[in-house]
């Protein structure tokens, strides 16, 4: 495997990691707010905050990691995406800032403020939408280069069926992933009432997930046919596996059993879809301006980054395991006894 392929695989894996942990977080914020206004907060909000409090900062790092990494491995992405994403990127940062700080204000500062909870819940649905813009732009057609200047075609983006289908998919995915995880977490906590409520959410968001995925496929076909053909031609099996995992997950949740396995299936469902999408997108990072081999950084930096990455993982993986052991797999903590 050459360095640039290794680089993009590492980064893609981190983005996938962010997709999972951030979805849980974003969706949890929404459910917490929904619970509050429907007066069901006593059922689920304690559970949600027990999970989120120790990990919300870690979630944030996954994202920082990805964008620092992509600028490091592929510096030309900074140039194109940086210029194009000034407005959508800034909006995403502001939403992330509101969300992160209001989480802290609400949870550590003044408990039970509905305004804080609303901002926290609402931003949770807007952030995936604004971040998914980046993926949309990477398909090409939303940037033009004129006299060495990058021009962002905002109007095209807002009127594109493809970009809206990606937004819809990202929002329903957030709610689906989050609900399946929280169902599992509530089950571990032996909190039957919370589990039943969250299970309902999971089942509710299951059909829209698959409908939105189909919508993305259809609109991709008219937006970027090369990519579409590669996805269904070479990588159809990954999307087929994704669908299979989805069906298994939904079946488990419907039959009220194996919630842990169901969540793993959901993770696999997104794993296959996300990597199938990524692999079929290559060799382009930003169609048609930045490709994998041309956009990559110099050899010595790439080598240094890979070494730093391996050493960093040796530090991170045990720490993450410790974190999960203490707050995810410790039955007493999950039940709220610690």
């Amino acid at each position, binding site marked *: 495997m050459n360095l640039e392929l290794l680089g993009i695989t590492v980064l893609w894996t981190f983005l996938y990691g962010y997709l999972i942990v951030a979805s849980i977080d974003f969706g949890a914020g929404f459910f917490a707010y929904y619970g509050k206004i429907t007066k069901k907060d006593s059922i689920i909000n304690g559970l949600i905050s027990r999970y989120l409090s120790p990990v919300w900062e870690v979630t944030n790092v996954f*994202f920082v990691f990805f964008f620092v990494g992509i*600028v490091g491995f592929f510096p030309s992405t900074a140039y194109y995406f940086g210029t194009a994403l000034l407005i959508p990127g800034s909006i995403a940062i502001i939403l992330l800032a509101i969300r992160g700080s209001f989480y802290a204000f609400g949870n550590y500062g003044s408990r039970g403020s509905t305004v804080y909870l609303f901002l926290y819940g609402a931003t949770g649905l807007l952030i995936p939408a604004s971040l998914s813009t980046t993926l949309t732009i990477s398909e090409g057609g939303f940037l033009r280069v004129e006299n060495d200047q*990058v021009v962002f075609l905002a109007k095209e983006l807002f009127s594109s069926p493809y970009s809206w289908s990606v937004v819809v998919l990202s929002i329903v995915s957030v709610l689906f992933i989050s609900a399946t995880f929280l169902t599992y977490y509530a089950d571990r906590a032996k909190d039957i009432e919370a589990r039943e409520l969250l299970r309902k959410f999971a089942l509710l968001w299951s059909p829209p997930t698959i409908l939105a995925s189909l919508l993305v496929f259809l609109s991709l076909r008219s937006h970027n046919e090369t990519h579409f053909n590669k996805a269904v031609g070479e990588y159809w099996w990954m999307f087929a596996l994704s669908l299979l995992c989805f069906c298994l997950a939904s079946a488990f949740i419907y039959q009220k059993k194996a919630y842990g396995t169901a969540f793993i299936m959901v993770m696999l469902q997104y794993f296959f879809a996300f990597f199938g999408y990524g692999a079929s997108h290559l060799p382009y990072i930003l169609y048609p301006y930045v490709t994998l081999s041309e956009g990559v950084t*110099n050899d010595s*930096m790439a080598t240094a980054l890979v070494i730093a990455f391996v050493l960093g993982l040796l530090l991170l993986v045990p720490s993450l395991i410790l974190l999960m052991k203490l707050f995810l797999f410790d039955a007493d903590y999950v039940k709220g006894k610690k």
Partner: protein
Amino acid sequence: MELDNVMLSRMLTAMTLMFHIIFATIGVGVPVMISIAEFLGIKRKDPYYLLLARRWARGFTITVAIGVVTGTAIGLQLSLLWPSFMEVAGHVIALPLFMETFAFFFEAIFLGIYLYTWDRFKNRMVHWLLTIPVIIGSSASALFITTVNSFMNMPQGFELKDGKAVNIDPIAAMFNPATPSKVFHVLTSAYMTAAAILAAIAAFAILKGKRSAYEKKALKLTMICTFIFTGLTTVAGDISAKFLAAEQPEKLAAAEWHFETEKNADLILFGTINENNEIKNEIRLPGFLSFLAGSSFDTEVIGLNEFPEDERPPLWVHYMFDLMVMIGFFTLGISGLYLVASKLKQWNELSKPLLLGIAASGPLTMLAIEFGWIYAEVGRQPWILRGYMKVGEAATTGNGVGLTFVLFALLYLILGILCVVVLIRMFRSSPAQAELEKRFPNGTID
């Protein structure tokens, strides 16, 4: 002043950084103080120190949250506002940026564990040990990000050919000549500022009439730390000045309004300057600039006249430099005075003027951090990459920088106000004495 993209990008970057460094400085310094207090509490079996660590940690969570989100903002803004710079620099400095996120990751994991495991371990030392990775993470991320800033001052480890960086040596870029003095100065001044702010809180509480053992112990501990860290910061500042004199003389010369290259150069305190570069109303310390630059009155100090006019930094950085240094010496003096007073029987270390001085030193040190960074950043104008790329060539060409400036200004305003409101409410709703009796009903830690 024309509000073009370059100006607006500079203003937005400056605003984000000035807001971020408040929380970044607290984020680097306060974990050290929490760790010291918790260690003392366990070793001396003193519930006061344990409570101190606990309450500091609780307030810290709020500032960390804002530090994280504004840090994310500046991280992304680098690419959004300075895409051409990041395209070139990304080839050279990606390594420390990448390592900074690892350090941040490490800190985030252990901070989460630390905050939620206060009563989970039988042996209290296990919980204290968690402060070590938090300190390592926060200080290491300051270290790595400072190497990036040092690189912008002293670029090396690459060659520029047709606007592209070639022959890259990532390690040489990271460990450029500016790195050691900058890192040392950044770390010590962050520890100093955190200690001084916590001391100011204790002094303020005592001034408001809370004179229990809790406040007195807090004041004593933080004052000792302030004195030590300020001493170290002074040393770091001196090393930095000598470094500038040798490697980046235009920055030091601009700070000191020093035009002619000469030996026995004067140090200028405050004063005013007119458009003919004539200095009025100053306090002149004869020969002291030479002494600052090289520990001897005979040291030759290079003057601004050696540099073409379009490569000189603006002269107003002089005030920033002076204010930073003054506050440093004020804090050193006030913490020294407190320590002397606490040793001498006939002096009262809790006298009102002294307490007022300590209470002032907290916000003042934070201002010194701001002044110091403004001096360091504006002092390398007009360069973004000294000697290679000017700021004007690096800014984005995208539309909407003005709009984003307004949005971020509103965001920081709201976050700043709410941060203060939430912190005050947090501590008012749970007074120290009540919490002490609740957590440690027997007055001992076991």
